[in-house]
């Protein structure tokens, strides 16, 4: 198999006596969607936070494209190609959708220290941003403030922002949460195509989406990976059935 894009090795994180991440190792390979599932409080979000740098691990390694990133800042990890989407919060809620994506294009170019040229006249920004909005089907809403977008549209905007960055690996924490069945279906189709941009580590409770999308699944319980495998292997794993899936499988 190819080299993993994202390699997590023996990661540990405790909150007091609680071992929220207890020796987790996960690989994310090129072109795959790797789903991370597990009951509430299993430590999925905590793991995502450590990968993107908003939480510091107690020990263990995180490598992105062969480079150790475990001690870098959030912004440095992002510049190295870690793309994360957020559940509810917008990048800049007061700005229009277009300006949000423009900011991401600007970040991708690494050029925020320019003081005089108005961004709205900067076609390198506006055109690149508009193109991303068209790809996620949000072009018609380009000039609406991000805070006034619907729930689903905010998710689309998040993806457009991710597309504007040169992402090597995506981290998506519950992208389907709060979306209606129709929205979930659209987003599922979209994520299916997104994996061609970069592999996705997907935290998701919506099992229909997980089974439809995932190439591999890891099951996290009490901070430990109790199983990793293909969809079929996980569905038929007795330990997983008792710990999490129950009647879902």
């Amino acid at each position, binding site marked *: 198999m190819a080299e993993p894009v994202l390699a997590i090795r023996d990661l540990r994180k405790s909150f007091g006596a609680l071992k929220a991440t207890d020796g987790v190792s996960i690989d994310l390979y090129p072109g795959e969607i790797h789903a991370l599932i597990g009951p509430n409080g299993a430590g999925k979000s905590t793991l995502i936070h450590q990968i993107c740098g908003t939480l510091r691990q107690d020990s263990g390694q995180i490598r992105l494209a062969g480079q150790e990133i475990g001690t870098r800042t*959030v912004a440095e990890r992002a510049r190295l190609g870690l793309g994360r989407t957020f559940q509810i919060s917008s990048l800049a809620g007061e700005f229009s959708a*277009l300006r949000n994506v423009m900011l991401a294009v*600007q970040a991708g170019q*690494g050029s*925020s*220290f320019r003081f005089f040229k108005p961004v709205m006249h900067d076609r390198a920004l506006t055109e690149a941003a508009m193109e991303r909005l068209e790809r996620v089907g949000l072009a018609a809403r380009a000039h609406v403030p991000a805070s006034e977008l619907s729930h689903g549209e905010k998710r689309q905007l998040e993806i457009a922002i991710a597309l504007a960055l040169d992402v090597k690996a995506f981290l998506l924490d519950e992208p389907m949460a709060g979306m209606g069945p129709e929205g979930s279906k659209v987003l599922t189709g979209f994520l299916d195509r997104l994996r061609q941009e970069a592999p996705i580590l997907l935290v998701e409770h919506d099992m229909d989406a997980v089974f439809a999308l995932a190439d591999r699944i890891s099951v996290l319980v009490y901070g430990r990976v109790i199983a990793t495998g293909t969809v079929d292997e996980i569905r038929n794993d007795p330990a997983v059935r008792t710990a999490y899936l129950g009647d879902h499988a």
Partner: protein
Amino acid sequence: MKREDAINLVLLLALLATPFIAQAMGETFTVTLVTRITILALAAVGLNIALGLGGLVSFGHAAFFGIGGYAAGILASHAMSGEPMLFGFEGSNQMPVVWLAAAIAAGVVSLAIGAISLRTSGVYFIMITLAFAQMVYYFAISWPAYGGEDGLSIVLRNAFPGVNTMRPMEFFLVCFGVLLAALIFSALLRSSRFGAALQAVRQNEVRVASIGISPMPIRLTAFVLSAMITAVAGALYADLNRFVSPSMLSWHMSGELIVLIILGGTGRLMAPVAGAALFVVLEFWLGGITERWQFFLGLILLATVLFARGGVIGLLAGKERHG
């Protein structure tokens, strides 16, 4: 033209026209009053970059205002006495030199203050900037070489090439020119890439970091630029009064600048001008009627915060729209 642009233009023209009208009517004092508005507005244009665009509630900008004032006073006093100061430099009574010195001095100090205080946020940031400003204040008080508690007089206003700065009208025009330049800079800044990043950092710091823009350098740059502009205002203020004293460095001054911006409409381009005009007029009129004018100022401030978040500009031009 957008409505806000039109309002901004009208405000600027009114600011420019008032002294001419006043002088024609023989009201020279009004010229001085409008000059005071102009200089306070300039100081607030500086603070508005940190506070309005960056969301950095600096309660220590009096330090930079005062540093600018002392730069003007100290350079002028050495130019007058001929006594050399640091590195054998003999002082200067030329405004451009004074402004440059003010901006550089405030730039260096704000870099140090910012590098430390920007590690904190919220109330801690407010308190730590206040603490630094108080340190500068007490330093000035206990520094006898430049007047200590009594302050320092400037015998003749510093000079500007081709202008007689001792004439109120001409001095006003110099101040107005600097304000205009600062407003143009501020307008360009807010619509630039840097301005976009700065405003986004205010709105959602974590999210901005997650797309690869480090918040700290953005904030520090804004803080330093902001301090430099406020320092130039301080130099002009010292020239206006022909006097610098530690009161320019006091926390009242920091508070006043914040109040100006809130009254004008936090973050709006012309908030400093609208706020300074309202503040000085209130101070003058209410101050003439009652000694407790600040009580009424407090009520107006309260009403602004509770019912008119956008301040004067918000009332006139409506909610801000970003492209």
